[in-house]
């Protein structure tokens, strides 16, 4: 996988320098508090298309960066 991510602090870097971090999203339609906990613990949007996510630049500036990525083709938007 030769994706490159542009880090605002370090510039263009290889994806291998980063650690993926999911942004959890519990839909508002789930109102029951136990079901919200269940969703938060296990369920995923796993969306096919553009997603907002966060990556940790562990081999660089060691800061979290925000990223828009299309999961269908791994293009960074």
């Amino acid at each position, binding site marked *: *996988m030769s994706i490159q991510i542009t880090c605002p602090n370090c510039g263009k870097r290889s994806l291998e320098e980063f650690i993926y971090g999911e942004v959890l999203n519990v839909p508002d339609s789930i109102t029951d508090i136990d079901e919200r906990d*269940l969703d938060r613990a*296990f369920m*995923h949007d*796993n969306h*096919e298309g553009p997603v907002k996510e966060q990556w940790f630049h562990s081999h660089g500036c060691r800061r979290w960066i925000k990223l828009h990525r299309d999961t269908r083709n*791994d293009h960074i938007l």
Partner: protein
Amino acid sequence: MNENIERTIQFKWHDPKPSYDVIIIGGGGHGLATAYYLATRHGITNVAVLEKKYIGSGNSGRNTTIIRANYGIPEAVRFYQRSVELYAGLENETNRSITHKHKGLLWIAHSEAGIRAERARADVNTAFGAETVFVKPDEIKKICPQLDISGDGVWPIRGASYHPAGSSARHDKVVWTYAEGAIMRGVHIHQNTTVNGLTIEGDRIVGVETNQGKIATGCVVSAVGGHVTTLAAMAKLRLPIRTHPLQAFVTNCYEQKLGPIVASTDLLTYVSQTAKGEILMGAEIDRQPSYSYKSGHRFIQSTSRRAMALLPFIRDLRIMRQWTGVCDMSPDYSPIMGKTGIEGFYITTGWGTWGFKAIPVGGEQMAELIATEKTPELIAPFSLNRFAKDRTMADRGSAGTH
């Protein structure tokens, strides 16, 4: 699909009927095996299998074809052992070759922790019906003379669990065998048929919307690989699934025989020889969720470096092909099978990196569930509601590689 195959195998294509008793979404191994076992074991033949591209075009055509039952928890050992038995009998049952070959599987330990894990694997396997023994380096050398016991000085081989039932089969032939068996008994397979929506009335499923029009049915099985979250969302169902790419590659022909399949949890890699003599290597999934089929050089570099530490002859080979599949990973590395809470909508997913080896048992058990409407004992632990009930099936034996 290959025209030559269509000539030699007795496939018949039909136009979609306005309604079916059962609709299976996904024409891969699991979907076709479910159709086959519905027809052969339960006499249910008014069944349609819907496939977006051509049969076996998804993960059934992208896996590394390893069959084994040496898992880490009792429920999984029983389940995969049944699959090993069904695979062994499939050629006799269908009178078709799937190039099924017993090779044995060595799961190598490089450390004290690894030895404990492999001893535990052997014990759990033996207790629940799968044959696995712990072997020491001198025995390992006899089983697989090519292994470098010193592990290139970095990964010394200190022991291994040996699973004689470890085997492989030709993935396309498995798909075609089940498809032919199902078609011969009256099942319809519709290729190039995309599902755009599921029709739900109250809490019952009543039909599917496809690019070929609406089809009515009381029973829908999702045997989708890779895009199951998107399909489940059509029924407003959220799944504990993240989809990750998994890469693999083969070298040119190795002119000697590599006897067993060789795997290592510490090195996160596994090596086997295909029927053509190529050396097939795979490793862990890509870390970020994605539906991309891109494969890359970095994977080849890191995987072959690790494989060469175990099998030095690999450094003389050349890489021929590389490919990627997208795996539905469940949080506990176990499949998710059974009812969904929506009446008539069944799901078989979470096949992550271990779907091929479970094709026969997955099909057989899903067919039994559909025919009897009762969850068979073998798959009851793998139900979707196990997460709500705090009964996750964390399985070390499947984590990491294949």
